[in-house]
């Protein structure tokens, strides 16, 4: 999908809207579940950040590789994963993409859709992503790897090692920082000597692009350009999408560490509204209704699915 004006663009915008609004309903459904039923583990809501996630992934080709971050499901859904296995992972169901075992709030994967998963240690996908891109370069398969990460994760040393090597080798990789201003209880401004993560790009001889993360199409366009550049063999790009962490670090986090007012349910610069503006009301309502149904059905199906059997514990240690 490229950045054409005209009918293609309109279709793209609608598709991005459809995915963003679907994820929004999914986010709300999960929140509801966590609040009412409790939940084994932590859920890191991506609400408010769906626009940038979907916008960026919509610029990827089907066989491009994705390493997502821990905030929500937007990335994976945008890459084509159906909702049911995603919810299944979340709820520890055998129907999860990881068969209810490795799943939960941060791990899901879809080899057929090149959704490669996530590590529990922040920043481990910097080096993995660079390695995936090195394989593509070696094989000449024309694929690009996209790696999402938070502003907090940008401080890990793996970034430095991966970014230097990726730049020197001109690897086909695109780094997308979701800068929501917080890393757990720490403000970005307390963790970074520079105003922007993108300010670090020149150190790595790569372009650094700052984009409004609430503007899904702007993120799409910036990502499309970076992916083109990567595919042309010109190396990596660092994109910083400015966004907001609407809820706490995890669902239920009361954020006692904040000295400013905690955000309410109102999402400033809401990507859903922003995308919706250019879509005729009736079309939009149709999309919304369908998305809502899709989410409800998938969530119900996941809830109804059996939990994984204990035997899976011993599976998949070895190939």
């Amino acid at each position: 999908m490229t950045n054409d004006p005209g009918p293609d663009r309109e279709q793209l915008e609608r598709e991005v809207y459809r995915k963003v609004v679907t994820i929004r309903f999914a986010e709300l459904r999960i929140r509801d579940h966590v609040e009412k039923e409790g939940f084994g583990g932590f859920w890191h809501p991506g609400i408010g950040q769906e626009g940038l996630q979907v916008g960026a992934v919509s610029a990827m080709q089907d066989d491009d590789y994705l390493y997502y971050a821990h905030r929500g499901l937007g990335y994976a859904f945008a890459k084509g994963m159906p909702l049911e296995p995603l919810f299944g992972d979340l709820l520890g169901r055998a129907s999860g993409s990881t068969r209810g075992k490795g799943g939960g709030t941060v791990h899901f994967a879809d080899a057929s859709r090149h959704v490669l998963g996530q590590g529990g240690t922040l920043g481990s996908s910097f080096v993995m992503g660079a390695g995936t891109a090195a394989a593509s370069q070696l094989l000449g398969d024309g694929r690009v790897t996209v790696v999402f990460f938070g502003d907090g994760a940008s401080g890990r040393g793996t970034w430095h090692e991966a970014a230097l090597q990726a730049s020197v080798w001109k690897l086909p990789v695109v780094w997308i920082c979701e800068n929501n201003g917080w890393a757990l209880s720490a403000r970005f401004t307390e963790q970074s000597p520079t105003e922007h993560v993108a300010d670090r790009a020149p150190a790595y001889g790569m372009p650094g692009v700052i984009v409004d993360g609430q503007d899904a199409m702007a993120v799409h366009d910036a990502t499309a350009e970076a992916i083109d550049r990567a595919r042309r063999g010109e190396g990596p790009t660092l994109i910083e999408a400015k966004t907001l962490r609407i809820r706490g670090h995890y669902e239920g986090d009361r954020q006692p560490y904040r000295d400013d007012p905690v955000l309410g349910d109102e999402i400033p610069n809401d990507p859903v509204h922003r995308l919706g503006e250019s879509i005729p009301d009736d079309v939009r309502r149709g999309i919304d209704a369908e998305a809502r149904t899709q989410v409800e059905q998938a969530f119900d199906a996941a809830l109804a699915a059996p939990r994984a059997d204990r035997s899976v514990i011993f599976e998949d240690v070895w190939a």
Partner: protein
Amino acid sequence: MTTTPVTTGTTGATDRVIGYSRAINEALAEEMRRDERVWMMGQDIGRLGGVFGLTRGLQEEFGPMRVRDTAINETFIVGGAAGAALAGTIPVVELQFADFLFTAADEIFHKLAKWRYMHGGQFTLPVVVRLPSGVVGGAGAEHSQSLETIAMHVPGLKVAVPATPSDAKGLLKAAIRDPDPVLFFEHKGLYRVKGPVPESDEHVVPFGSARVARAGNDLTVVATGLMVDRALAAAEQLAPQGIDVEVIDPRTLVPLDIDTIVASVERTHRLMVVHEASRTAGFGAEIATQVQERAFFSLDAPVWRVCGTDTPLPQDPELEQACIPSTDEIVAAARALAAI
């Protein structure tokens, strides 16, 4: 399945019943009051008081320079602590999960463990690394491991594995006063467990002294961390069946009080080691081996192990419990061993 919090140990005259978390928090506060050189750093330990709440209130009391929030930089947290120790301070640092010692492994296993040695004993490295450890409920393969055996294998690190509030406090105070680097494995599953803790600023539990948590004559069970309570529960079930179990908690793995264990086995003639860490090449093997080295002819049966599975830990809270020893498994194994 998860055991519900229980109270362990006997209550002395001046004891209060407090939680394991609270005990750790008190140890930190008391040692920081006692010695100005003691300070802390780690992620979210200051304003938030730690992801598990262990350092709550400490930044208020000691200020942001002595309770310092870092960025997400485990190599700095540990390596920086090593460097800060060389400059005459006593850093007590927290990694959010014990598993993250792998993100600072060069700093732990090379810098902390070997700097003094490599430089001919000119320096001491009084660093404590606090490591929330073990299975706790859906945290997954990289946030739930019990990695204390690795620290036991690499010379130069002391290793504490407290199982009760009293030991958590007393061992942490000992760790902070120790001139050597200490890896302090706190079990996340014990944070909310309550127990008696002496009312004293000088409640210091020396490293290398095992605790006999229950005396018994038929079978010695060595257990650590979360497994101590399960072993005790198993012992209570076994007693009416005529199997009188002695439960020993070594409390520190380095140094290891093997004498207490051997002396027990010389009376009971049977030993079982229970640990949450994965079985193969876990510290159970070391204890088993030392005991048969020193008391082979006292043993009436092989030393057995009841351990975590040799698999990564699944993220699902139910499945992960099936990967670590339950009281039932301990009971069953003890019965079988006693029958040999």
